[in-house]
């Protein structure tokens, strides 16, 4: 399958493997291979992050809560696409995290932004299976994503009952598309708090989850619970 990538005059020299894709919005930049989606400039549009339930504690987070206007990087992230999107290929990214304590997950927040297509994604929590997403523990459909280049809204998955997680065990948060969003093209924005330490990542391009190595920087997300 051909991944269509934004071509650029200079990048034809520089990127080497870029090719023009029809329908890609102006300003959108795809990396070689299409795994990273960026926008040349932020929009400056601010949308506040969600409020957490009273007593919610952090199980994992790489969000920059000490900079309220920079919760995550506005303008570059992991590509999320359905097979019918303008990229013509499926790309579902997943990031691994380790539970910091025995807890019950009641919320996970993901910095995902719409590029084009149907404005919805599914946020998923998986158990780990030998370094890849395994059993699906929870899945929540989210609509009304903010546009790419903005900050600091988050796609939120809440589960009042909660999903038990074990301290030290690995889990996965994944952003996927489904039958009601067959043309969705979004990006899962990178975090701004750690440009050095990798999180294991995986990707599903239509034939199951495969490892995608250590993501540096990792996509931005947080897991909360009680």
């Amino acid at each position, binding site marked *: 399958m051909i991944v269509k990538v934004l071509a650029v005059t*200079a990048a034809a020299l520089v990127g080497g493997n870029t090719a023009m894709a029809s329908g890609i919005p102006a300003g959108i930049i795809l990396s070689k291979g299409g795994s990273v989606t960026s926008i*040349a400039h*932020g929009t400056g549009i601010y949308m506040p992050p969600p409020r957490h339930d009273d007593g919610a504690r952090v199980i994992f987070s790489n969000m920059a809560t000490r900079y309220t206007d920079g919760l995550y990087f506005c303008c570059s992230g992991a590509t999320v696409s359905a097979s019918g999107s303008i990229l013509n290929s499926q790309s579902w990214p997943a990031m691994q995290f380790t539970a910091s304590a025995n807890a019950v997950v009641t919320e996970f927040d993901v910095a995902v932004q719409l590029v084009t297509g149907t404005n919805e994604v599914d946020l998923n929590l998986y158990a780990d299976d030998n370094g890849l997403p395994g059993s699906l523990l929870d899945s929540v459909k989210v609509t009304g994503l903010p546009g790419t280049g903005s900050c600091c809204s988050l796609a939120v998955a809440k589960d009042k009952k909660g999903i038990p997680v074990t301290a030290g065990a690995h889990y996965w948060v994944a952003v996927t598309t489904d039958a009601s969003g067959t043309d969705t093209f979004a990006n899962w924005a*990178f975090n701004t708090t*750690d440009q*050095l330490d990798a999180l294991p990542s995986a990707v599903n391009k239509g034939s199951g989850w495969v490892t995608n190595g250590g993501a540096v920087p990792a996509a931005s997300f947080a897991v909360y619970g009680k």
Partner: protein
Amino acid sequence: MITKTILVLAAATFLANSSMAAPIDGITLSEDGRTAVFSESSGYLTTPPVHEAGTKTLFSNIGTKYPKGEYFCCFGDTISGPDSVVGSQNWAAAQFASADDAIVTEIDVAAEWAGGTNEITINLYADKGGVPGKLLKTFKATGLEGVSTCCAFAVGKDKTGIAIKGGRPYWVALTTGDPDTFAIWVDNSTDQIHGLPLAGNTGTGWLAAGYQIPQLSFGVFGK
């Protein structure tokens, strides 16, 4: 007095040397060539500069609250000479203002080297009608860290200092001295909402280039 300073650890040196064989591997440029994106960070830590005792911050968007994220590793503006692999001159300048009258003694810029001669020039300009005007100081910085690392800076220091007026706009610009240099001035990690005035020089002088969101990452320090 001009002090040439740049922080490079062994890891960055290794990265730079490795990149030399394929100096732009992993970099994608925007259509106009002015924005550069790297697919991922190298994960190499290079330490930020230590400031002189008593130095105060005149302007900074550096993410000091997250030592592993002082800036965003992997996205920024192209800084290039006309004979670089990019094929054109691209110089960028970001406007800032100090709240009070001050003496600038240090400018830190989050610049990463991508190819060609590993050297850039840090410039401090007065403002003239919304673009860089009179050149107040120039610092040459060599040995930039390789692309997609964090968290070293290209540093210009001047012990005597340059006087600036509070509330007035000034410009920090990155330019090339050698025509084959290709570097990236990466974006800040602390503010994705508020822009700074940007100017560009592609060989015909400084021209206003609107507001840059997110801002390019830099700090201006002094007394």
